[in-house]
């Protein structure tokens, strides 16, 4: 059994800095709005809370000094994916009504499974001996750009192919089929 170091309350208070407070606020935003995403009855509200949760994740990236990823998170997730889902939601608005039941009958089992996995993950996090030291980090945008075009150039090109295929596939799937009017 590895030894866990638990500091007493006084040193704990001295250890807490502005950075810790910022992390707690961000984590609160992320987890609170994520919990609302999966529980709120109106799906449109749930989508708006999902946007708030993504914004909180972007703040977490800032705390990890991943400035490029934080900006991309806002652009891609909030700017593209949320808007896409909003369109899909409005196109299928008839199922959006709040009078409908929104959870399946198996939700207690779902909650049980989620809690079980959470317990396992937390146990691994606490009892693993992490060895790390934090060093200051310079802005990452330029380094990521260089890495994407040198060391990771093959996955980078593959990602563009994946995006192209997804775009073509989405257009083919969502296109209205006009060939069989009799059906």
């Amino acid at each position, binding site marked *: 059994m590895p030894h866990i170091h638990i500091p007493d309350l006084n040193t704990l208070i001295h250890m807490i800095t502005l950075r810790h407070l910022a992390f707690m606020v961000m984590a609160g935003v992320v987890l609170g709005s994520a919990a609302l995403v999966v529980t709120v009855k109106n799906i449109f509200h749930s989508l708006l809370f999902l946007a708030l*949760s993504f914004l909180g994740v972007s703040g977490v990236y800032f705390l990890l000094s991943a400035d490029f990823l934080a900006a991309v998170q806002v652009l891609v997730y909030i700017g593209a994916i949320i808007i896409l889902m909003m369109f899909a939601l409005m196109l299928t608005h008839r199922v959006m009504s709040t009078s409908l039941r929104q959870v399946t009958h198996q939700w207690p089992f779902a909650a049980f499974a989620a809690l079980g996995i959470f317990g396992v993950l937390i146990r691994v996090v606490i009892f693993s001996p992490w060895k790390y030291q*934090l060093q200051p980090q310079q802005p990452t945008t330029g380094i990521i750009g260089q890495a994407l075009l040198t060391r990771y150039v093959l996955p980078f090109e593959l990602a563009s192919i994946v995006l192209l295929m997804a775009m073509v596939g989405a257009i083919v799937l969502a296109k209205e089929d006009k060939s069989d009017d009799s059906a």
Partner: protein
Amino acid sequence: MIPLEWYLALSAALFCIGIYGVLSRRNAISILMGIELMLNAANINLVAFGRYLHPNQLTGQVFAVFVLTVAAAEAAVGLAIIISVYRNREQLNVDEIDLMKG
């Protein structure tokens, strides 16, 4: 300095909220939202590990960029499938779309 464990705990909690959403919701779009939450949790883990264990290689962040790409592709194709299903069945509740159940 924030301990690495805090980020891991945040990501574990976010992942499990996503799992609950995927398993318990009826509407297909809500299930997609749960999947997006889980992908975000994985991304937080990637960036946190990259920052704390290999600070100057940025491998974690590059991987997070690729996860983001795949998440965008998945959302596009998933929503196209959802719209197509809705057009054919007038229905999006996954417990009633059971045509292949036999």
